[in-house]
């Protein structure tokens, strides 16, 4: 079962949440961030090249222009490969674990998998960021030494940064699966 809904992130950009229910014990949430806009790309390129041209007229060295082109290309490639995240996915499988994948604009994918044995709970936390109060979904990990303690807080959807309404949807689905998992694991 698949369905798609449109939400917005904390800066007002448009996000698309795709939900896939593979089975009662396996669900996937896919958040697509707004793509790289042509306007900002053109603006940055024009600024860099104008600055390079200004330096060229000052120093009369053509190496400055080729260096500017080189820097722009490398910078764009580096941005697409290391910084710009296109999609963030959360896959939650009952009795196996929770997997978070970020796919970059260049196609690179970085995945983290947390086993269900280490997951204590999934909660929505409130944070004060500069002048804003934002909400974020995070996974609490168990502390192996202390049974009721928390060893780590892992935030989810860090670059998409959806608003509370989107987070509530994801939170409800995750809690259904976690409750089901807790019920079946405690029974003999």
């Amino acid at each position, binding site marked *: 079962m698949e369905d798609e809904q449109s939400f917005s992130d904390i800066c007002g950009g448009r996000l698309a949440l795709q939900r896939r229910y*593979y*089975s009662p*014990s*396996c669900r*996937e949430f896919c958040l697509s961030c707004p793509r790289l806009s042509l306007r900002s790309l053109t603006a940055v390129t024009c600024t860099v090249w104008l600055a390079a041209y200004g330096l060229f007229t000052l120093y009369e060295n053509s190496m400055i222009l080729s260096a500017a082109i080189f820097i722009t290309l490398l910078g764009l490639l580096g941005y697409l490969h290391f910084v710009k995240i296109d999609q963030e996915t959360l*896959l939650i*499988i*009952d*009795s*196996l674990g929770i*997997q978070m*994948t970020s796919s970059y604009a260049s196609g690179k994918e970085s*995945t*983290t*998998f947390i*086993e269900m*044995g*280490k997951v204590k709970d999934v909660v929505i936390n409130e944070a004060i960021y500069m002048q804003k109060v934002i909400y974020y979904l995070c996974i609490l990990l168990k502390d192996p030494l202390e049974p009721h303690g928390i060893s780590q807080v892992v935030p989810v959807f860090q670059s998409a940064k959806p608003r509370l309404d989107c987070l509530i949807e994801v939170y409800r689905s995750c809690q259904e699966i976690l409750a089901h*998992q807790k019920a*079946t*694991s405690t*029974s*003999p």
Partner: protein
Amino acid sequence: MVLKAFFPTCCASVDSGLLVGRWVPEQSSAVVLAIVHFPFIPIQVKELLAQVQQASRVGVAVLGTWCHRRQEPEESLGHFLEGLGTIFSHEPWLQLCRERGSKFWSCKATRRQVPTSPSAPGEDQVMLIFYDQRKVLLSQLNPPAALPDRQAGDATASAGGLAAVFDTVARSEALFRRDRFDEGPVRLSHWQSEGVEASILVELAKRASGPVCLLLSCLLSLISTASACRVFRLWPLSFIWSKLSTCEQLRHRLGQLTLIFSTQKAENPAQLMRKANMFVSVLLDVALGFALLSWLHGKDRIGQLADALVPVADHVAEELQHLLQWLMGAPAGLKMNRALDQVLGRFFLYHIHLWISYIHLMSPFIERILWHVGLSACLGLTVALSILSDIVALLTFHIYCFYVYGARLYCLKICGLSSLWRLFRGKKWNVLRQRVDSCSYDLDQLFIGTLLFTILVFLLPTTALYYLVFTLLRLLVVTVQGLIHLLVDLINSLPLYSLGLRLCRPYRLAAGVKFRVLEHEAGRPLRLLMQINPLPYSHVVHTYRLPSCGCHPKHSWGSLCRKLFFGELIYPWRQRGDKQD
């Protein structure tokens, strides 16, 4: 809990048979290791499993049946498979079935004993997880699952979570050694059933490594005993040895070579990795050293270097003389105390004169010395760089001496000033209580004290300026030496073999796993593909980096500034084994 069946991808298209593997009850997961094909005799299968269990200490058992229907569905086969459940009793009994031409499987897991609680059904839900057996076998999970009291090869396989799957597959090598060319009674299918893979070069290298290691370890032990003999313990030699970074580097390399060529086999994968990293690092070092050697000895570069060295040293000395003349005048418009200025200036100028005469004395021998020193590059680029650092230290020895004189003078002055300042305010340092106490002085004590204090205060700018100038020069030399040491450290500690492995065979260094949901149809069991998530490059460097010489600056910036202000001498490199300040 949902029952997880880990199924190897190599067995997804083989004929029907029995599923053989390990059942992990804590996670309710069944790890399928191989498939036993028809026809078989149940007694022989049980014998084989007992053998494998004894050899590998993994609880291998028959987990269920696998049915690959190539032709029309055969009812008789279905009943036959169900009947097998009574011969090989296992709780729960898995039944995996695949239709011809269909991607979707059907799985059933039945429990014979009816559970007491009514909520748990007699049939469990099954989730299929495909895994690549070869990659899981060869990979090393990082960080390794922490098992508190585990002896190598002693305890049975017991680890938490997915580490249990990796552990099970890795330990079942005994099962995977039987391939289809074996004349055994039982026909198995697993990742190696088409024949064990091996490489001729690797086997030859393994055979040759024994005697080679023995020979080299004898040679190296000879060298280490020769270097540890009593002659080198005598005072002047041991002092020089401890100060030269070349000796430190040579000792480090000798230690590494001894470890690589020791006749003991590596006990665990981490040690093997370390040995391999050291070996590749030594190889690269020697290769770069030979490149440097060929560059130096071609086109008479050594001669050019030697010809350039004496004029450079002369130039440095001349610049220092200019600097001192400038200090002796009115540097930056400040007015110095004439008498002290002249004394200090003349003292340092005489030192420079001595130094220049020493350099001129050495100049005919410099080319020979450089030629022999250049030969040492064949021991490795790191040795050549350490020698360069030592040469820099020797050539700037006069700067070091000036720094020490200036620092000591300044330190004395500061001590005197602080104690006389206390006298000026009517206080005294109580050595017993380690604090400042008030004290009543006599009039003549106060008079002389105040006089001395005034003298020291007015002489302070001169001493402070000399101290500042020579400290800056010394810090410059220390920075240059520091950069060379950083490069040497980099070559010493970079784990090149691990980085190469991460580049070419990323599944060998695993940070974890990742799952992908395969095509799904409602009503069918969920199918997942488990792949190895490789370790990121930064983690590889961090986990596998080799221990370096240990010649790192041990001060923080705050303590460094404090020492500079109070005129205490700074020794940025404490060699290992020196006493701490």
